């Protein structure tokens, strides 16, 4: 998109018109909209969009930060593999997420070779460049990220390369939020770029089962406001449908090639989500035919189910939209991005870090 177009999607006049429309949709009871994308939270917090919401409408971040929902078990496994002498390549945000005993960064301080990469493809290059070393890519992320990991698994990587797979799937997480006690969800703002891959149609089953409106939304301020207007309209009219408010990047069926790559490299299995627990059919395991690429098979490391949240930290509630960062007594005092206590303050898309950076709920 050209820069001028991007600015057009931040046009203040239209934002005011949306705000007015939102006011006209003011509900007569508390309505809670949940999004599951750190990038949505950034758009909402950075542009102060909560100040435009009518009274009685809350927008919360659920399990939308892939770094934050990575279980301590997967993290501990990465730390132990690194301490055994392998090169562990991970996205930058992963380095400071607390494990049971150590973060990857602390493991590096103890001499482990932990490297930051921007892409699965970069990790493969590290493997080609270090043929005498074992190189592991710590693969986290949702459906947006999994196709890249799949592509490198399927693309004949060098024999010293393997993947520690911890990818997670968004629709099962949304299903779970609908079923958790004390979590009120009246509508979902579905993540635009996950939906680029899986397609808007991927939410139909959820909508039918739970009669909850789902609107797929983009990431510019007007995209988000438009998505919220569509959700409030559905609620007012008693509809529960999937609506695609981001057609410039999302189709009904999604990206067939990317889905085929995921299907060829992975099979759907249970996954452990930090703060939520074990969810069936919510993660991606490397298929048996690619077992040589599976770091779990290659490295015998014993890991226990570690402590998921440090004492006092409310990440587990923040990750299921049961609490906002401001509900945590440690927020901004004992817990800051410089000295994070929980994973929601570490991940740059974690609700706590985003609220710390931009201020989540405007006090206008």
């Amino acid at each position: 998109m050209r820069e001028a177009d991007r600015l057009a999607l931040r046009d203040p006049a239209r934002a005011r018109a949306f705000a007015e429309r939102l006011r006209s949709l003011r509900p007569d009871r508390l309505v809670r909209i949940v999004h599951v994308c750190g990038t949505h939270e950034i758009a909402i917090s950075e542009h102060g969009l909560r100040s435009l919401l009518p009274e009685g409408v809350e927008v919360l971040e659920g399990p939308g930060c892939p770094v934050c929902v990575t279980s301590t078990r997967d993290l501990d496994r990465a730390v132990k593999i690194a301490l055994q002498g392998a090169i562990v390549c991970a996205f930058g945000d992963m380095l400071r997420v607390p494990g049971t005993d150590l973060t990857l960064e602390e493991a590096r301080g103890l001499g482990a070779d932990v490297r930051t990469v921007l892409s699965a493809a970069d990790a493969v290059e590290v493997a080609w460049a270090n043929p005498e070393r074992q190189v592991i890519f710590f693969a986290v992320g949702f459906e947006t990220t999994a196709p890249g990991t799949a592509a490198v698994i399927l693309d004949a990587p060098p024999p010293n390369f393997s993947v520690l797979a911890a990818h997670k799937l968004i629709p099962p997480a949304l299903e779970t939020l609908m079923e958790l006690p004390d979590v009120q969800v009246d509508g979902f703002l579905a993540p635009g770029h996950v939906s680029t891959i899986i397609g808007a149609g991927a939410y139909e089953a959820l909508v039918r089962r739970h009669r909850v409106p789902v609107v797929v939304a983009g990431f510019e301020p007007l995209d988000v406001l438009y998505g919220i207007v569509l959700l409030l309209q559905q609620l007012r009219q008693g509809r529960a449908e999937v609506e695609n408010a981001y057609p410039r990047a999302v189709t009904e069926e999604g990206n067939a090639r990317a889905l085929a790559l995921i299907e060829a490299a992975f099979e759907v299995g249970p996954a452990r989500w930090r703060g939520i627990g074990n969810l069936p059919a919510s993660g991606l395991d490397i298929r048996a035919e690619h077992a040589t690429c599976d770091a779990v098979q290659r490295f015998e490391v014993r890991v226990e189910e570690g402590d998921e949240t440090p004492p006092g930290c409310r990440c587990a509630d923040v990750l299921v939209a049961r609490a906002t960062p401001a509900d945590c007594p440690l927020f901004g005092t004992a817990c800051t991005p410089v000295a994070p206590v929980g994973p929601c303050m570490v991940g740059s898309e974690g609700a706590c870090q985003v609220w710390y950076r931009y201020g989540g709920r405007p006090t206008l």
Partner: protein
Amino acid sequence: MCLAVPLKIVAVEGNVATVDTGAVRARARLDALGEDVEVGDYVLVHAGFAIRRLDPDDAQETLQLFDEMLASDEGG
């Protein structure tokens, strides 16, 4: 981390494109794209992989969508 950014392709070699990020040139793999692209096209890139080709006029279409909704008297 799920953010994908629209970037312009300045060169294509096999399944790797060079994209212009404004500040630097970066590479984007095309394996997961499933659409033909050429120099000058815009693609959404996430973690080093292009995931969708973008229509350069898409923002205008989006604005049209917004304006239609604002013009309607639905809701309120």
